[in-house]
């Protein structure tokens, strides 16, 4: 027993050394480099926007980190070195430390949609089907925007869904349908578009649906950060967002 214990602790020692080595990267100095935090639902859009920005602004580099809006706001409040943050919905920005905000503008809108596997084994045809007993419905956690929007939508539709899990962010929620584990997930329209053929979308009527207005917030006076935000709200940026299922203001 003791021998084993020591083996495990030396393995742990190795892991810590590795972890420290991996964490040793320092953020590149501001200037030509922009660090962007973006909501999980913006994954495909901001990967595309960052590539396009780097192509049209030679010498710049954009680093985007994705997560649930709630997590990202917390990271900024704890002093994460980011110049720009893009969030899923205005209410997600409320806990953000006001002192850190230099400018804020709405750049995209999104609505909820039901994602089902391509063969739709449970035969989900509308939001009213989601309260069927035995159905496996996955939603976002109540602390993140897509979870709050889903709760609001179900409340106005008068539907109590058979929820089996509340996931940390919208991409984790969608993945349960992609893996075939869940019969349906409530995600954003843009996620269904981005996922392509691997899921099918079932629209939620506008009367009960929740529209989220995505703010992009500048956290620094850095000119490259400003020009990245200008690029996102430009006609070209808006076209990219629309092609990935977002609305633009």
């Amino acid at each position, binding site marked *: 027993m003791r*021998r084993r214990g020591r083996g*495990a602790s030396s393995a742990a020692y190795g892991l810590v050394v590795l972890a420290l080595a991996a964490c040793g990267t320092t953020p590149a100095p501001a200037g030509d480099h922009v660090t962007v935090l973006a909501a999980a639902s913006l994954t495909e859009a901001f990967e595309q926007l960052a590539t396009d920005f780097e192509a049209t602004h030679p010498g710049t580099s954009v680093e985007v980190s994705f997560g649930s809006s709630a997590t990202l706001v917390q990271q900024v409040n704890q002093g994460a070195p980011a110049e720009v943050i893009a969030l899923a919905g205005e209410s997600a920005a409320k806990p953000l430390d006001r002192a850190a905000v230099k400018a804020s503008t709405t750049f995209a809108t999104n609505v909820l949609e039901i994602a089902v596997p391509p063969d739709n084994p449970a035969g989900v045809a509308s939001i009213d089907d989601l309260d069927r007993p035995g159905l496996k419905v*996955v939603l976002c956690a109540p*602390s993140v925007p897509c979870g709050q929007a889903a709760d609001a939508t179900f409340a106005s539709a008068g539907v109590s869904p058979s929820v089996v899990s*509340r*996931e*940390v962010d919208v991409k984790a929620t969608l993945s349960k349908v992609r893996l*075939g584990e869940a019969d349906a997930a409530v995600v954003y329209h843009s996620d269904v578009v981005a996922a392509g053929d691997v899921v099918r979308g079932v629209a939620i009527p506008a009367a009960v649906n929740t529209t989220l207005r995505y703010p992009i917030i500048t956290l620094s006076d850095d000119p490259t950060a400003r020009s990245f935000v200008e690029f996102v709200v430009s006609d070209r940026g808006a076209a990219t967002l629309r092609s990935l299922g977002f609305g633009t203001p």
Partner: protein
Amino acid sequence: MRYAAGLRSRLTLGIPAGLALLLLVVPLVALLTRADWARVPADLATPTVLPALRLSLLTTSTTAVLCLLLGTPLAWFLARSDHAATRWVRALLTVPLVLPPVVGGVALLMAWGRLGLIGQHLSPFGVQITFTTVAVVLAETFVAMPFYVLAVEGAMRGLDPRLESVARTLGASDLRYLRTVALPLVLPGVASGLALAWARALGEFGATLTFAGSYPGRTQTAPLAVYALLEQDPAVAISVSIVLLVVSVLVLALLRGRWLR
């Protein structure tokens, strides 16, 4: 001169040693100082926390029982064999020990998921493991069982082989020898193995989140609740963290005081 050399070598070793200690101790101290002890009892009674603690207690105890019932015979076979295959099995057992838990979760999905190796044969009967408390127990057993088996195997290897010969001459079967002779003698090993496995199961996060999802009362164990609460109500998350820390320290104290010294 000699004094200076002694001092230098003491510093050369002492500074990294001190840093190592700081790296380990500072986060724990920080957690303890941030805790508002007065509000801990009230926080534990909140609607998110209580079901999570209850679920953690239920699933970790079930995991411990599974380790005892299934892991003990496995440890027994490993301890008494020196076959090459045994060494492979032992090596295989250590994989879940070092595997990133989230990878364990993906592996569990591939096995027990609706489209998984085993799961696809369960779906026709209307059985789905994912998103159930059973999935939580499977995830916890996956990460905890190796601790138990290796601990008990080590203890069993320490037994005097003559005991088994004597038991055999007296006509005892394997099962009888295990029950009446071996197990009582390795009880300390079994107990420490159980405590380790239980503590590992209590801390399970990645595999549970990936494989079982997170739903209050059903699959949201205490660590998952801490993660969810950190975004909603960090103060409550800290209270639950404190409880988990205290429980872990208690298990450690129990191990050190009772069985490991």
